[in-house]
């Protein structure tokens, strides 16, 4: 089955279901039978057997399919006996057996998960894409009668910032780090995002300019400062153009400066966000912008009317 190296998408996976692995030219394959969630130990398959996660063969360590070489992300074990609980296809319990009894089962490659999670074993490929994230929210799933982690295994946050460990579905006590360190690091992360410590360099390109620049978004507090900095940076390319449109003098910068630039229709400031979409700068609050901005493009106004899809395509192609 021909597979792109991109993420599993529902359309392509709804076609034929091979019972054995098909290898493709780029080494990835989809064995849809494998998308049945089954319990297995990490390392429970023989060394020659490639580890699979939801049918994606990880042989090529192809990271672009959305899975890294680590098949056991988001384990939910809670130090439970993952080996003796069972699920079979019909009644939704986990099937697993140890020590030779079902080496075949083991060899098929599987994912270690909490025996208490009553996931539907008829997981279809569409779910396979989202099943990683499904496991992430398993903690709150009411299907199982018991909590995923015994309550005396939950890490009570010492301070308000220790949210990171509890919100993801993780193995209890893994990685083996003491609570104090975990909580300190969590509060570090929270601090950094509040205070904006560190730096956030993004590339800035300008249509027609021979080279790109980089700016540290953290050094600016609002759009006003940012646009004036950009202006300074790229002034050598735009001499005469901004001024000729009758914009206010630099000293009299106002918050609408950026809007003026835009409405002046000489240049439009756009950015690519985390999702890969091209957006107009200025719509969202400054903090949200710095959080999501990956790179910037100063494009000619004429090419960015309403940021039409055509303009977006052009931006993408030129990158």
């Amino acid at each position, binding site marked *: 089955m021909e597979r792109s190296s991109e993420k599993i998408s529902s359309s392509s996976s709804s076609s034929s279901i091979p019972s054995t692995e098909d290898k493709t030219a780029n080494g990835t394959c989809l064995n849809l039978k494998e998308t049945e969630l089954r319990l297995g*130990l*990490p*390392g*429970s398959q023989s*060394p020659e057997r*490639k*580890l699979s996660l939801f049918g994606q063969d*990880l*042989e090529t*360590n192809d990271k672009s399919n959305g899975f*890294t*070489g*680590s*098949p*056991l*992300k*988001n*384990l939910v*074990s809670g*130090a*439970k*006996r*993952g*080996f*003796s609980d069972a699920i079979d296809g019909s009644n939704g319990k986990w099937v697993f057996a*140890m*020590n*030779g009894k079902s080496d075949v089962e083991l060899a098929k490659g599987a994912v*270690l998960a909490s025996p208490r999670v009553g996931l539907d074993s008829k997981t279809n490929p569409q779910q396979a894409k989202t099943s990683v994230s499904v496991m992430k929210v398993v903690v709150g799933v009411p299907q199982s*009668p*018991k*909590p995923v982690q*015994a*309550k*005396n*295994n*939950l*890490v009570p946050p010492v*301070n308000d910032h220790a949210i*990171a*460990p509890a919100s993801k579905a*993780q*193995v*209890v*006590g*893994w*990685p*083996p*780090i*003491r*609570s*104090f*360190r*975990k909580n*300190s*690091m969590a509060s*570090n*992360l929270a*601090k950094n995002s509040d205070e904006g*410590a560190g730096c956030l360099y993004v590339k800035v390109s300008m249509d027609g300019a021979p080279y790109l620049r980089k700016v540290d978004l953290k050094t600016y507090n609002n759009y006003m400062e940012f646009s004036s900095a950009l202006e300074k940076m790229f002034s050598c390319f735009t001499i005469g153009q901004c001024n000729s449109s009758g914009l206010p003098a630099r000293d009299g910068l106002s918050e609408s400066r950026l809007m003026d630039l835009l409405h002046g229709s000489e240049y439009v400031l756009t950015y690519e966000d985390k999702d890969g979409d091209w957006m107009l700068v200025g719509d969202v609050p400054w903090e949200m912008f710095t959080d999501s901005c990956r790179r910037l493009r100063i494009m000619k106004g004429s090419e960015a009317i309403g940021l039409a899809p055509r303009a977006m395509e052009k931006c993408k192609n030129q990158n």
Partner: protein
Amino acid sequence: MGSYSSELKRSKDSDESARRSSFPDEVLERVLSLLKSHRDRSSVSLVCKDWYNAERWSRTHVFIGNCYSVSPEIVARRFPRIRSVTLKGKPRFSDFNLVPENWGADIHAWLVVFAAKYPFLEELRLKRMAISDESLEFLAISFPNFKALSLLSCDGFSTNGLAAIATHCKNLTELDIQENGIDDKGGSWLSCFPESFTSLEVLNFANLTSDINFDALEKLVGRCKSMRVLKLNRSVSLEQLQRLLVSAPQLAELGTGSFSQELTIHEYEDLESTLSNCKNMHTLSGLWDAKGIYLPALYPACSHLTFLNLSYAALQSVELAKLLAHCPRLKRLWVLDTVEDKGLEAVGLNCPLLEELRVFPADPFDDEIVHGVTEAGFVAVSFGCPRLHYVLYFCRQMTNAAVATIVQNCPDFTHFRLCIMNPGQPDYLTNEPMDEAFGAVVKTCTKLQRLSVSGLLTDLTFEYIGRYAKNLETLSVAFAGRSDWGMQCVLGGCPKLRKLEIRDCPFGNAALLSGLEKYESMRSLWMSACNVTMNGCRLLAREMPRLNVEVMKEDGSDDSQADKVYVYRSIAGPRRDAPPSVLTL
């Protein structure tokens, strides 16, 4: 014949007394009092009855690795002259929340016996014990000579208990509060040291979070002229640090507070010159929220540094490299993996004397970032630091080849703790298990005492360990192995094994029971989320009456499964303070 044998006996007695008088007990005791190592002392005590007695009368420090292996009464009976006690309680996995909160290891019963038998007790060092504020107060008022209190990974107390210590212990020289589950109710405890109190030499409150009264601290540091260790918490600012250092330039160990205040040029220069006055400093830690621009202030103080603990300072590789250029004598380095492989390359280049490296993960729970350190960083360090013998390394990828290279460069490892953070992850280049990596470690590093394994591992790893790791004392295993055979190899092969801790491995009753004879020579065994059943544990308990076999059940688990098993040898018999969730078989 009766007279002949009694004559023989008499001549024997006189021979012995002749021998004894030529080597009086006092001399023996004097000689033995110079022995510090508790293992040496144990050996001495086994020589003969005289030596046993001489040793017990001359021993002033007792180390108890498992508080339930012996009772305080037994200890007090054997050793009448103890001044210093080190006690360890809960199994190590309690640090990672695998042990129920009310499990035990309460110090109070010990304190009551000590108050009666060792009224002149001076030192108490506790690790993974439960200690309440009442116990701390009891301690503070029961021992007039009390000098040193050190608490690591303990819980059950609050800063009120510290206040009691500060108030009552007039001769205190050491207050060392390391990472604990302490209920931090505020910093006023520090103000409880009386104005007349001047004896403090060691003060470590780095892991408390509340603000303390800086004025009280400044005065305290000012009047304790013998202070050599001062580890501040995050609430102490750079400016305050500078003021403290002015009155304590003699410090040998410094833990800074927060290293990120906005300083004027003048303030920065003051800090720099004050730090350069600290000519005795060999250990530096803290550096919370360290900003790269202020690190150069440390440079002049680093020339004699042997231990640098940056594990709470999220430095980047360039910042670390610049700092290390000033630390040529470094022997121990703890960092966060924010320094990345480039930072570790700088370690290899600048620290040829390095013996210990610990790399902690800054963001252990986010496996979507591709940051941190890889095998390349570890390899780089190994090339530059041939004396490396202790490593704790958290990473997200590793290869067998890299580990083979590392141990080839550094064959003297005594402690090799590798944590590939994703459970069961193979060699990321070859996709093979990491068996050969740990095989290389145990084959090459003959002095290996402690090993923590991780990654995708088959039973072969444990075959290697059993066959080659002849000096191994502590083994930690998680998410590894294929069958009982793995654990059997270890139990059958490692003659010096003392502590074995296993979680989430497919080892069952056959494996557990294969160690029947071994467990009495070990301190303890921990197995959780394995394949052991209650019947297996009952069998073990029945066969080995001198072992305590404890099973911790979890809510709603199968009745026949032994979720968590803790086995340890004891001369005190089964404990009586176990909570309902802990079954002693």
